[in-house]
């Protein structure tokens, strides 16, 4: 199959103040190209930890993680950064826009870390990405001048600008009111329709169910893995 992500018996533990927390244990998971996976579970069950492993923001304590056919344990720090830049798009619950940069510069940011793009190319990509989230008219605004929904749309544009092979979203609607949340969900669905692979952590039952596949975690383990593609909108 066309698998993007393969996790084999992944464990992740944190050591804080001499106490070891096992955040994830024996996770086995495969995600294919074009899937829209929602990850649910109670708070503290390890959803964000899982997502950060998928996004190479952290390394597993045990087990194997193959991304696009490559074993990630062999990657250097800089290679991991390069993969995050090219293959992965992040959307965070708290948007994580950089306050000193305006909308355009925020979206441009991941592209500036690639050394192989021309100015003109960057410009088209940024404008395309902003157009996709309908934020093209706010180029020169700073994050503090935008509403939460607008900020999250800019964050999505930033994730899209690099044309990643997978989008990772950690509770993207968590800080939004229902109207804005719906708008963001519509956007993600539209992207999914265009062929994007998406992994989304959510608390919201409705959001979770609108994905093509739903994974439930409990206490660091996968307790449910349901394919929903037929019911989905």
């Amino acid at each position, binding site marked *: 199959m066309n698998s993007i992500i393969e996790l084999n018996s992944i464990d992740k533990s944190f050591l804080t103040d001499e106490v070891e927390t096992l955040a994830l244990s024996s996770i086995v998971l495969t995600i294919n190209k074009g899937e829209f996976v929602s990850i649910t579970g109670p708070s503290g069950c390890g959803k964000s*930890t899982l997502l*950060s492993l998928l*996004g190479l*923001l*952290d*390394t597993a304590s045990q087990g194997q993680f193959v991304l696009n056919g490559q074993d990630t344990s062999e990657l250097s*720090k*800089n290679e991991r*950064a*390069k993969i*995050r*830049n*090219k293959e992965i798009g*992040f959307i*965070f619950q*708290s*948007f*994580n*826009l*950089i*306050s*000193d*940069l305006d909308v355009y510069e925020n979206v441009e*940011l*991941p592209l500036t*870390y*690639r050394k192989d793009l021309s100015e003109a190319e960057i410009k088209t990509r940024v404008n395309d990405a902003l157009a996709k989230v309908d934020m093209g008219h706010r180029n020169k605004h700073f*994050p*503090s001048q935008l509403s*939460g929904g607008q*900020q999250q749309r800019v964050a999505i544009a*930033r994730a899209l600008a*690099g044309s990643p092979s997978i989008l990772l979203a950690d509770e993207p609607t968590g*800080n939004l009111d229902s109207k804005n949340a719906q708008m963001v969900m519509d956007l993600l669905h539209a992207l999914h329709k265009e062929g994007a692979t998406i992994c989304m952590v959510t608390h919201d039952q409705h959001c979770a169910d609108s994905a093509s596949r739903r994974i439930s975690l409990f206490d660091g383990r996968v307790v449910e893995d349901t394919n929903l593609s037929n019911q989905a909108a």
Partner: protein
Amino acid sequence: MFRDIKYAWRLLLKTPSFTGITVVVLAIGLGLSIYMFSIINMLAYKQLDIPHYERLVMVDAVVDGMENQGNVYAHDYDYMKQRQQSFAEFSAYISISLSLSNGKEAQRYEGAFIEPKAFSLFGGHAHLGRTFIDSDVKKAFIDTERNPDHSDVVIISYQVWQDYYNKNKDVIGKTVQVNGKVHTVIGVMNEGFAYPRNQSVWVPIKVAANQKAGQGGWQVSIVAQLKPNISLPAAQQELMTYSKELTAKYPESNTNVSVHSRTLVQMMMDNSMMIVYLLTGATIFIMALVITNVGNLMLARAMERSKEVAIRSALGAPRSRIIRQMLLETIIICLIGGFFGVILAGWGLDITRPLFQTFGIGASWWTFNLGAEELAIAAWIIFFTSLLTGLLPAIKASNSDINRTLRDGTRGAKSKSSAKLTKVLVSSEIFLSCALLILAGVMIFGVNDALNADYGFKSKGILSARFALNTDDYKNTVTRNLYHQRLIQALMKEPGIENATSASALPGRSSGRQSIQIEDMANQDKQYPRSYFMTISKNYFEFLGVPILEGRAFNDNDAIDSLPVVIISANFAKKFWPNSSAIGKRIKTEPNNPESEWLTIVGISKHLIHSQPFGDEQFRPAIYVPNSQLAYQYQYIAIKTSLDPYQLQKTLIDTAAKVDSNIPLYNMFSLSDRLEHRVGAMVFVGKIFIIFGALSLILAAAGIYGIMSRSVTQRTQEFGVRRALGAIDKDIYQLLLKQGLTMLFAGISVGAILGYLAVNMLSGVLLTLSGYYPAVTIAVLSTISVTFIAATLIPAFKVLKLEPNSALRYE
């Protein structure tokens, strides 16, 4: 309130390392500035116990545009005194060494010829007997050295009464020989009275009615008291009018001669005004660094608690209460730091007291301890410091947006204002420390130069003393020269003494300067050139190891009735005979006086520094005439030994007593000590600047590191985001350096400019400094730049060691 204090105290104890560091930084900074401001206050502003002290004015002669170069001609003084309207009192004095002798025991004291008014002018009163009255003063100006005709009354200080008369109450009316002439003691002054500086014997000055105008002649120092409603500039202007009249009337003696009035407050500081400004500036800079550092520490503390504060104010706690709480902590810390600072300052004053007493001017008036005045200064400094350090965190706390703090959706420097604050703080630290370090570096090199200056002679192993020949036994040059020769011969026979000489002045021991007329040379400047003028024994140059570059030294053929001869210093020769030999040319020391003899130049000596090795003074020329042709009443004797010169003190005194028991030696010093005393102030300034330099480097390094690491740590989440988006470590370092470079550049350019201005201001006045500016500046700027870059990259390195995930989760 008390509960708040207790709470603040508890919070401080909960973070002992923070409290400790802050207290140490404050104690050092406050200690140094309390110390410095105590000294500056003492030098510059301390009210002495003198009525209308602030209105007392010294009037100095200005010759060739140089202030304080010699005193005012007695005739000119009289001329101005008759006419002036600006001063309530206008009084002359002459400082002079006087010996007291009761026939058995002779003792030498610093004394002065003064006018009766001077006692009340300086707040003195008689402890016993009375002070002078007008009838004590006769109508003739005293001839200080050649032909003393002293009045017959004398007043002594409390100290002399105690030491010389064992506090004998019957001293009034007793007679005593003052410089060999019988005087009656009419008064004992109050304890501590030492007018004009450190004098302890006073004889009335006699105003000259017959002082001839236009021929220079005897000179006096003038002290005056301004009328209450007259300003110093107005008074100065009035005196300048008379000065111009005198120049017009007597161009030969008064061309380019005028007067300059300074308040006693200014006079006390003399040339050290510059040093006072310099020290004040440097201290303020150090204090600014301390305040920035402590302010930053307090700010960091406030930021750490900003979430707590936001929650509390969200819950309804009044903001004023929160700010008060923070201010209380600052005040407590400043008080503790201030307490230790005062102890440090007191200790510093203790150890520098002996040093200051060698400075001379007014030293006997200065008190060196933490009195009420110094403690008041300390209280002000501590007050301002706590205000300024408490200000930053308080403003920060009152500005912060609760909502923002509680739910910050963006990642970056916590807010624009915080980033701006970081920039301001860091740039200030950089420019303050750069300017201070440049100044300190240049000063240290300059002082070092001055201390290692080549005086042009060998000062090691030389002991010198002064003596005065009484005029009854030694009336003229022949008898005086005979005494010199006998003393020298006797000394040379003593074991341990390798050589001996005598002269009217020795290097490092001041000598007068004389106007010189050169034969057959038009006087371009309308003003006769001035030169140090010394009468010396024939072995003077050999004794000091100074080579004769051209011509010859003096010898036995230079007798009283042979051709009058003179030796000039190399720079004198070079100035007036740049292209020909000076040998055989003739000069005279009393221009246009037909009775003054022409002196034929027979030798040119290598230049040697007669006064201070700084500024212009070191280049002043000198001329020398042989004692066999001219000998004054006052003279120095010097011996050379390979032993510690002070071991020969007794030999020197005893030998002199054997030659003539009526001539006491006084003012005994090793020449190297004497030279060191003259640069004592410089040594002090040099040491202070080493402390300033070291301290500013430590404070700047600690401060810059503190601020930068906080600023970087604050951006942990932002870096997490950037790394999530694909930034590699190099991208982050580059970003930080690029952003830091503006701060660095702004800081070092302002610092370099300030440093340049300071160095330029000082150069030439005190030392020759500017030559060191480029090298010191490059060294300082690179040190600070490296410090800054390290302070930026090291915390970033720590943050980048975290997985991006942890950085993103960082609170």
